[in-house]
Every structure is written in C-alpha cells, then in structure tokens.
C-alpha cells in the first residue's frame, strides 16, 4: 500500500518546485529586459538622479497599486481609490490649516481609513458587487471633495507650507525622497502581512472561494472591510504625498489613476478573479509602466509613437508572462 501511494505522488504533475517558481517570473524577465535595453541605449538611465526620480515617480501609483493588488486578491475591486486619495488630501490640508501639520496628516490618513471602511461596509452589507459599489461611492467622494473645496484649490497657510511639504523633501539616503521611503515602508508592511500572517491567508481564501471561506468559519465580512480600510489608508498616503509635492490639494487630484493602478496590479500577474497574486507583482507592474514612460522620455523618440509602443510593450510583457507560465492544468 505504501509503495502505491509513493507512486501516486511520483505521478503528480510538476510539483510546484523550482522550475514552477522560475516560470512565475516571466513578467520580471520582461522588466529586466527593458532595464537592460535602457541602460545600454542611454547614458542617463543608470544615474543616481534618474533612479531616485523613478522611485519618486513610482511612489503614488505604487501605493495605489498596492491597494489595488490587495483588494483584487480578496476578490473585489476598489475603483474609489483616487477619489479617496483626493478627499483625504483635502481633509489633510483643511485640518492642517486649523490644527497644524501633524494633526493634518493624521486626519488625512484617518479620513482614508474611514472612507475605506465605508466602502467595505457598503460592499458587505448591501451585497452590491464591489465594482459598481465603489464606482458609485467614488462619484460621491469626488462630489464631496468639490463641495468641501467649493471647487477651488486649497493650500495650507504660508507659515505651515514648508512643514506640510516635508514628504517631498529628499532625505540623507542619496536624495531619495521621504515619499519614496514612506512608499517602500508601506509596501513592505503590506507584503509581509499578506504573505506571512493568517490575516493574509484569509484574504487569499476569501478571494479564492468565498463560500469555502465562510463554511470554514472565516468572518468574510470583517476581512473584507479590513481590506477596504487598508486600501483607503494606502490611498490617503498617496494623497498626502501628492498634496505635499504640490503644496495644495483639489477635487480632481489623481483623476483616472485608479485604472493605472489596477492595470499595474494585473500586469504584474495578479488574477482579476481573485485569490491569486502578490504585492511584489503589483510593484513589478508599476515598475514596468513607470519604466516605459521614463524610457521614452530619456530616449527622446518622437512621442507620436509613444502610446502605440507603450501598449505593445505592456501586451508583450503580459504575453511573455503568460507564455512562460504556460497552460494551467
């Protein structure tokens, strides 16, 4: 009997081992290819300055892509991230004007958490699909932002402006901005939480099969609300960075960027169907998209072809990924 079972195990299709892991890295290969090409064909790509810029550019969309990845893995969509971003940034400026920069920043993050929680509760309670629920909520949030600002630009009082812009300052680490560091820290935390904690496992379980998760006693509703809340906090941090860079906030902040963030998450290899993916995949996606833009800007090709090349490169990268991962059994 034991002999047979051993045989059965030997039969098992391509046990996910080293080769499977390598095959999972198709998208990384795509990014590495682009990096190599850019390093060779420009003298400016591989300079500290450019790399620092790249990181800085990736910070906001990276935070949003982290949020998007998390929510998508949990089996939902959050189309409201940029609306939350804008509203949180506005709250941060408003509170800064009343109570100072520290309270302002905290209020911004809190606003993100609250809005995210509202998203989660609506999705869980009303049972409307998150796609449409967060779309409707994002319209509401943008509307609130317009009402709060009366449609104008808001900025912190002159004497608080410098402190308010702290996030955009370069730090000692070779000029890397505080925003970049914040971004890296948040990503690291989300990555670890998702990959190493039981909360992370629950998120995957819910995204992979909500009914199975429920039958196993997982509190699906609570986990979902928590995921949306984290998403809201990531969005709010993105908002703080943007507000800090521009020294102001407005209702139209980051309009449309949610699609870039979701695209980054998905390009990286996170499944739109939920239950599969990883934070690093979202980052790879962001890197890919940022790199394509950066490369174009550095190379100085005629931008009239930019979109076509951009689209083709994205398609190429995901195809390569798909090809290497091969047929799913």
């Amino acid at each position: 009997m034991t002999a047979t079972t051993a045989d059965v195990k030997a039969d098992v299709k391509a046990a996910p081992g080293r080769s499977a892991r390598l095959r999972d890295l198709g998208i990384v290969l795509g990014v590495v290819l682009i990096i190599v090409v850019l390093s060779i064909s420009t003298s400016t790509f591989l300079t500290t300055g450019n790399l620092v810029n790249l990181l800085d550019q990736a910070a906001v969309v990276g935070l949003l892509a982290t949020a998007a990845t998390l929510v998508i893995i949990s089996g939902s969509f959050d189309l409201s991230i940029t609306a939350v971003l804008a509203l949180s940034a506005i709250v941060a400026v408003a509170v800064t004007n009343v109570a100072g920069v520290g309270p302002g920043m905290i209020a911004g993050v809190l606003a993100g958490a609250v809005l995210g929680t509202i998203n989660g509760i609506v999705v869980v309670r009303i049972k409307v699909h998150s796609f449409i629920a967060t779309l409707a909520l994002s319209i509401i949030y943008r509307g609130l932002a317009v009402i709060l600002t009366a449609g104008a630009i808001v900025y912190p009082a002159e004497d608080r402006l410098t402190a308010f812009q702290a996030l955009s300052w370069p730090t000692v680490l070779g000029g890397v901005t505080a925003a970049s560091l914040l971004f890296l820290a948040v990503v690291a935390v989300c990555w670890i939480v998702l990959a190493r904690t039981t909360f992370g496992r629950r998120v995957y379980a819910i995204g992979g099969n909500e009914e199975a998760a429920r039958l196993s006693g997982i509190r699906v509703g609570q986990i979902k609300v928590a995921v949306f809340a984290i998403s809201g906090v990531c969005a709010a941090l993105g908002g703080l960075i943007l507000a800090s860079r521009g020294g102001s906030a407005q209702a139209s902040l980051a309009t449309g960027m949610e699609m870039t963030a979701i695209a980054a998450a998905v390009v990286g290899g996170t499944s739109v169907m939920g239950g599969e993916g990883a934070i690093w995949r979202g980052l790879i996606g962001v890197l890919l998209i940022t790199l394509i833009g950066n490369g174009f800007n550095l190379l100085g090709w005629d931008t009239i072809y930019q979109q076509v090349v951009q689209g083709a490169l994205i398609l190429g990268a995901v195809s390569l990924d798909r090809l290497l991962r091969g047929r799913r059994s």
Partner: protein
Amino acid sequence: PGSETGPASTTAASQAAQGDDAQKRIAFFGFARANAFAVATWNGIEEYAKANNATAEFFDPNFDAQTQVQQIQDAVTSKRFDVFIVQANDGASVVPALRQAVAAGITVVAEFTPVGTAYDTADSQVPGVVTLVDVPTDNGKKLGELGVEACRSKNLDPCKVAYLEGMKSLPLDNARTEAAVKALEAADGVELVSRVEGGYTREGGRKAMQDVLQAQPDVNVVIGSSQAIAGAESVVKGKGVLLIGNGGSRQAVKAVQDGRWFATYYLPEKSAGAKAAELGLAKARGQQVEESNSETVLAPNDGKGTKEALAGVAGEYDE
C-alpha cells in the same frame, strides 16, 4: 528638490557659455497629442524653433497631470534640453518639477495655464519661470462682459443667460466660472438662469444645451467652451439664441464672422506657441525678457472676439 541637480546645471551653464549661436533644444509639455489646441501651440513652437536654430520635442502626457510631472522630471534628468515650454494639465502639481528644472539651469516658460495655485494673475508663481499665460479670471471676466454685450446688442431686458461650465472638479474652471458669473451679475437686467456642466466636447455641449432648453426655453445668451458651443449650436439652430464661445479655433472664428455666434474669446494659439518659444530662446541665449506676460496681448481687442474684432482673423487650429 529630490534629484541630483549638480551635473545638469553645469552642463546647461557650459552650454550657455558657448554663446548665443549654439543650437538650443526645446521640450514642449503640451496637454496631449490628441488635442488640436496643444498641437497648434506645438506647431507655433516648432516653426519658430526651426527658424531660429533650435529643435523642439513634444512630450505627450495624454491629459494626465501626474504623467506630465514625470515627463518634466525625466526631461531634466535626460539633460537634453535648454528650454521647457509647459502647458500644464494641472498648474499646481507641476510646480516642484519646474523648480527642479529651474535649479538645473533650464529656461522655463509657462504657456497658457498659470503655474501655481493662483488663477488671477499672470505673474510668475515659481521664481525663474517666465509666463505667457491666459489668466483664467481675466478670461472669465471677458466672457461675462461679452455676455453682457450680447444682451445689450439686442436690447434685451431682462436678458436670460446660460453658462456652460467646464469641469466642476477643476479649480481653474471654477475660478473662470466665478469671474464670469460676477461680471454677468454685475450688469443690470442680465439674469443668469442656468449653470450646467458643458465640458469640452461637442457631445457634452449638445447634451447640456438640450437640457437647458428644456428648463429654460426662452434663454437668450449661452456661454461655454468653443467645443461645447459648437455642440450647442446644432440644438439652438434657428432659435435666435446668441452664442459665445471660449476658444479661437478656425471654426469658432468663422462662426463669429458668419454671424452664427455672437462672439468668441479669441487667442491666436499658434502665435502664442511661437511667442513662448521666442521668450524661452531669448532668455536661454542670455537676453533680457519680460517675466510676466499675458496671452491676450497677442490677440485683437484683448481676446474679446466679436465680429468686428475678428475681421480678417483666420483662427490657427481646427476643432
């Protein structure tokens, strides 16, 4: 702040030292390649550059404010340019990147959109940046004044005016709208009966106009972006409504000249592009230039494009 700027400034400085004759390179950060207005600016810049020993490149952010910021940053990094001409999608978010550019020794010209958070001045809000802008509140005020003129031209009292706003979520649009509304309300007998979003497409204008007409069938004057007014025109045909556009496309100018529209706010956008290039190149070549410029000086009648004012004008782009 945020990048290593040292080497860049040395390069720029050494190039400046080569004298005025050296070829200069212009980077143009326009709204989008898929935008006739931005393409008109671009044509002006390119022509002027060619004629004046310079090259030019168009960076296409496709209307995205953050992408534009990245393009400016990257262009600083790439050290390939001496002059930036920036037509900002969002005047506030480009400020840090423009500071970087100025610090790197690049000559920056803000074209059309004011750079910074104030919408009521042509003055530079970032030290070192030369402006050639269309001041939004000034623009709005003139639209309002044109509206009042339209009312007066037919001796309408009361005169019902509808204003098709741009985007409610854009501060710049709102600043313009406020100014227009103020100008309209200041006039006796002029009544602002409707404010709806008309946007910047014919489709949006058409839809808004249909709805406005349902609510206010006897509206006399309609003001909106030239695209929205073009859409609105098909709806109000034959109803004797006076139309006022905001924008100087060939079509808008022709509509005014043909008497189909009462007026349009006219700026010669291609000339503005050329002027921006002229300012930028002059400064980069070490000449003294006026730091603060309004685009309206390039236009007849300060931009208030009535039929008389636009006589002989053609418009510089299609829309």
